[in-house]
């Protein structure tokens, strides 16, 4: 039974050996030698230090292509033409499924035909040396971004390969990303990922870990995202991680997004133990984009404006081609520059939005209820409690494809465009909080002269791609 305790060194070693034997490239991992490689890197490639010492939001795009030389060229472009402060390497979907054979085939295809049939960089197949070639070739710190429920081998290889930041977590890379993975299993698997980061940290290589805040990217109520972030942060901290970046995805309402980012920071600092440096990352709109680059630029800009006001430590940018597919490097760089210009124009302005405090209180109270419910369900053990809470629906994520979550929660926007909860399922929110959500959605329903229903949810899902925030019924309906 998995509990929130630090993996014993012996266990770490045992799992490590087993994990590395999963695929031939695992054999090249040598911890001592990896420490030496990390120590050889200049300060400008130390992810945690660069992020934690920044005095304005740092920008990071998403990007991954199968071949090493293409990936180097892509990241160079994003750095030079996009002005990215932090670089990504997004992993392909086969690797995320631990299908290293298929990923290898895809890589071969890409090498032979020049056409990319993989949607990312298969880091396991590239192996430790391939990763290091990438790290060596670029000037900025690089993070592994993926969506892999069982990311143990990926972590072992990429940490050894010189990456100093690793996205994901047992909930955030399970519930939104998979159907049949068992939550207890992913928690156990991520204990290894975090413990290994902790082992590097003890040797002075402070690997940054970043739980994936946007979850399903689609109308996620802030309290749910924040609760999951704080829980994953606590689990990582237990394993010795000391640099943790909690995430949140833009919902598109100015006041709610600013309040949520403040709440995320304050609850992160409150719940995570002292030696942990907490930073926060804001993801530009993670839901469906407009099928039009001009309109997509407005969505990106609204996110950038929010970032300028809330001042997260990092912003993950989108490109205007988000709707259509993996963007060209030019479009990806354009998303960075649009974001930069907007942030730099607004950052020095003292912009205070009225009503942020009220929303902040509501988000904090609700998030706290969910976090405490999870801790309580495990009699103080957050690992056990989280498993219980997802089983009973006390914790839940809207649109979650995973069988490990109830998927009973349904969100909808209120009359001001803030994301509220329409169906709670068994979510552990108090009557007070539920009543606030009810009232707000009733007000919207009456504005629109229709019942609260799934149609409202569906309309809200499409709203931004249709050119507005709230999915009001249109004349034709």
């Amino acid at each position, binding site marked *: 039974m998995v509990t929130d305790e630090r993996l014993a060194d012996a266990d770490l070693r045992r799992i490590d050996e087993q994990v590395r034997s999963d695929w031939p490239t695992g054999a090249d991992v040598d911890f001592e030698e990896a420490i030496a490689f990390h120590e050889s890197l200049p300060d400008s490639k130390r992810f945690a230090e660069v992020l934690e010492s920044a005095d304005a939001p740092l920008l990071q795009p998403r990007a991954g292509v199968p071949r090493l030389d293409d990936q180097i060229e892509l990241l160079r472009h994003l750095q030079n033409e996009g002005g990215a402060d932090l670089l990504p390497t997004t992993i392909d979907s086969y690797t995320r499924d631990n299908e290293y054979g298929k990923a290898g085939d895809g890589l071969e295809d890409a090498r032979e035909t020049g056409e990319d049939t993989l949607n990312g960089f298969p880091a396991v197949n590239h192996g430790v040396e391939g990763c290091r070639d990438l790290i060596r070739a670029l000037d900025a710190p690089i993070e592994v971004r993926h969506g892999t429920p069982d990311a143990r081998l990926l972590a072992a290889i990429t940490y050894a390969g010189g990456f100093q930041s690793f996205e994901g977590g047992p909930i955030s890379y399970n519930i939104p990303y998979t159907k049949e993975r068992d939550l207890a299993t992913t928690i156990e698997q991520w204990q290894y990922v975090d413990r290994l980061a902790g082992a590097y940290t003890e040797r002075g290589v402070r690997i940054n870990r970043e739980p994936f805040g946007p979850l399903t990217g689609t109308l996620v109520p802030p309290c749910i995202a924040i609760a999951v972030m704080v829980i994953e942060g606590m689990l990582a901290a237990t394993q010795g991680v000391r640099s943790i970046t909690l995430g949140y995805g833009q919902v598109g309402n100015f006041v709610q997004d600013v309040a949520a980012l403040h709440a995320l920071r304050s609850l992160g600092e409150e719940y995570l133990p002292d030696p942990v440096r907490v930073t926060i990352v804001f993801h530009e709109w993670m839901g469906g984009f407009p099928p039009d680059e001009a309109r997509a630029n407005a969505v990106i800009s609204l996110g950038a404006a929010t970032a300028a006001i809330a001042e997260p430590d990092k912003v993950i940018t989108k490109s205007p081609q988000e709707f259509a597919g993996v963007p060209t490097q030019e479009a990806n760089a354009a998303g960075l520059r649009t974001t930069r210009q907007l942030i730099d124009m607004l950052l020095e302005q003292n912009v205070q939005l009225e009503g942020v405090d009220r929303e902040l209180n509501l988000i904090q109270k609700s998030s706290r209820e969910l976090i405490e419910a999870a801790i309580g369900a495990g009699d103080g053990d957050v690992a056990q409690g989280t498993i219980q809470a997802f089983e009973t629906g006390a914790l839940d994520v809207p*649109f979650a494809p995973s069988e490990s979550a109830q998927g009973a929660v349904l969100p909808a926007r209120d009359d001001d465009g803030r994301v509220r909860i329409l169906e709670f399922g068994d979510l552990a929110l108090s009557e007070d909080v539920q009543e606030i959500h009810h009232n707000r959605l009733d007000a919207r329903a009456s504005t629109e002269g229709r019942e609260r229903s799934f149609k409202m949810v569906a309309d809200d899902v499409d709203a931004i791609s249709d050119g507005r925030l709230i999915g009001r019924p249109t004349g034709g309906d």
Partner: protein
Amino acid sequence: MTTTVILGVIGSDAHAVGITILEQALDAAGFDVRNLGVQTGQDEFVEAAAASDAEAVLVSSLYGHAERDCDGLHEALAEREIEPATYVGGNLAVGQADHETIRERFERMGFDRVFDAETDPEDAIVALKRDLGLAETDTERSRVSS
């Protein structure tokens, strides 16, 4: 008369929102929808189609690996000697590909219709009605009763 359609996201793709919306719309239009969810294998599509005598199989794919994931699906259906209408939709290739090229490619694989990500659920419903020879009145009735 109820018309059964199979719906799912193929391969290891986990994009759930699109099929959630599609399921709800098809259901409201009177179809009997079997939603297999995300990360559904070819075999599960074929099994479900055979078991429920489905008139259509709707395959969704967003993450860019559709071609690889769908390869062999029509042969497997043929082996079971079933011939449902087959639709595929979503973001069917990696990157900024042009829909016409993609459509041809998937039609060659055997799909009856190929939809891009701008597809409205209504488009799929209209196409199903036409392809399955459902009268307008059928649907109107089903819409009223739903």
